[in-house]
């Protein structure tokens, strides 16, 4: 054995009665924010309150896909920074986050989709992010398993190719950030549930937990899919969020067959091959809010039907495991990051839908700045909560909103 096994994120400690900052939710955003608070802003007296164990929620259930080819100018720079941070964090945390920079192919199935892709690609290129439109043949050369024939439900017209994207080992990010947090003095309290947030005179004063009361002037709720419910339940603030279950599954492990992340909006489906050789695939969401994280018979069948169309060789491969996670969807498919409104010292970081993983590093950086200074960094300003009442939806999706998240 060439090293000794010792606790990765510190020994278990007692919960103190006061902290400079409390973060509710030991997922990626909470861990990253705590890490940067301690490392960049010298606020080390931080407690992360996690009801179950770190990485239990979306952090451990997501697609593991990273990319920076979003639609609007507000999002692209944020995700670009997040993308650039993976190698930096790997080094900084001395923990292999296993960034597989394999590139992403987003398939387009109609002339209209090709046009929409052009706009997204131009936006990426304008911001210095590499992204190209390729035709079906070029896509087939990159992904030989692709079916580019006409006789499928959504024939492939081309793809948006995004070389800087790829896959990061999501669990590694959780454990690496936890390690980094512990190193800088942040306390991680697992099996600890936040039960109330206390305010006085419009200011945050503390957090009630299953292990006692904590005094603090700053609270961040970054509890992923549970954030909106917590914020409404504890503070009475309603958010434009619907919490949906999103599912993913893996096949039995195979020798390398897919060398890129391939996704298709029309089929509600992405597929990539993990380092272990499994084809990881998913994306569908049932449109009714729920907190179950249960998977469905409907979806695993749907996924098999979709892949039978566009990656037909996988028909000879077996699904091995399916699971679900929560996605907190907003009407404009963009997150809400806000603070000190209407309660001083209260910060929220939610509404990430299924983009929480790819953004976590950059968000941690900027949310920590927000919490440390009390001033909203320019990067986060467009993501304020008031945009909905000001009729300024962000347009990260082009689709029109009606009464459900995806219209």
């Amino acid at each position, binding site marked *: 054995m060439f090293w000794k096994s010792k606790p990765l994120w510190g020994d278990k400690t007692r919960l103190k009665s006061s902290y400079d900052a409390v973060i509710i939710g030991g997922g990626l955003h909470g861990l990253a924010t705590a890490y940067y608070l301690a490392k960049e802003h010298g606020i080390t007296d931080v407690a992360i309150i996690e009801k179950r164990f770190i990485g239990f929620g979306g952090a451990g259930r997501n697609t593991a896909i990273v990319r920076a080819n979003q639609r609007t100018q507000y999002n692209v720079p944020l995700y670009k920074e997040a993308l650039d941070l993976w190698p930096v964090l790997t080094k900084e945390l001395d923990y292999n986050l296993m960034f597989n920079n394999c590139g992403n192919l987003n398939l387009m199935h109609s002339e209209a989709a090709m046009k929409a892709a052009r706009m997204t690609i131009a936006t990426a290129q304008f911001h210095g992010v590499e992204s190209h439109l390729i035709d079906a043949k070029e896509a087939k050369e990159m992904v030989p398993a692709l079916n580019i024939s006409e006789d499928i439900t959504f024939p492939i017209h081309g793809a948006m190719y995004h070389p800087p994207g790829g896959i990061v080992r999501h669990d590694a990010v959780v454990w690496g950030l936890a390690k980094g947090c512990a190193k800088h003095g942040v306390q991680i309290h697992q099996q600890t549930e936040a039960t109330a947030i206390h305010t006085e005179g419009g200011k945050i004063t503390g957090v009630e937990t299953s292990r006692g009361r904590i005094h603090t002037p700053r609270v961040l709720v970054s509890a992923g899919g549970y954030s*909106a419910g917590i914020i409404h339940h504890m503070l009475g603030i309603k*958010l434009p969020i619907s919490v949906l279950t999103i599912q993913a599954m893996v096949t039995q492990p195979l020798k390398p067959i897919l060398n890129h992340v391939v996704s298709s909006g029309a089929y509600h489906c992405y597929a990539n091959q993990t380092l272990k050789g499994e084809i990881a695939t998913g994306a569908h969401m049932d*449109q009714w809010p*729920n*907190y179950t994280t249960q*998977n469905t*018979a409907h979806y695993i069948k749907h996924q098999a039907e979709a892949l039978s169309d566009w990656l037909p060789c996988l028909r000879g491969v077996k699904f091995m495991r399916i699971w679900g996670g929560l996605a907190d969807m907003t009407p404009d498919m963009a997150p809400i990051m806000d603070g000190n409104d209407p309660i001083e010292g209260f910060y929220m970081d939610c509404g990430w839908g299924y983009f929480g993983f790819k953004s976590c590093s950059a968000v941690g950086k900027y949310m920590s700045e927000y919490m440390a200074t009390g001033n909203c960094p320019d990067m986060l300003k467009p993501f304020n909560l008031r945009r909905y009442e000001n009729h300024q939806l962000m347009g990260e999706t082009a689709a029109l909103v009606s*009464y459900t998240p995806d219209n």
Partner: protein
Amino acid sequence: MALTLTCPVCGKRNGYEFRYGGEDKGPRPAEAGLTPRAWCDYVHMNKCTAGVQKEWWFHRDGCGSWFTTWRDTTNNLEVEQPEASK
């Protein structure tokens, strides 16, 4: 999960025959004097209840009715209307 919903016309059916229509927020507010915040509250804001909520559904693949039901969002099962809300 397998969602099953009870349509008032067609009875118990596979949840995928239906379309979710949002938390019940009551009738449309009057236009006069409606502030942007009140408007936004009605149109976009949700309670995101972890538990039983009253909500709207449309029987899309069936009879085409809109109806409300009570559902526990933590297990996706329909429940009787809670006493407290009666």
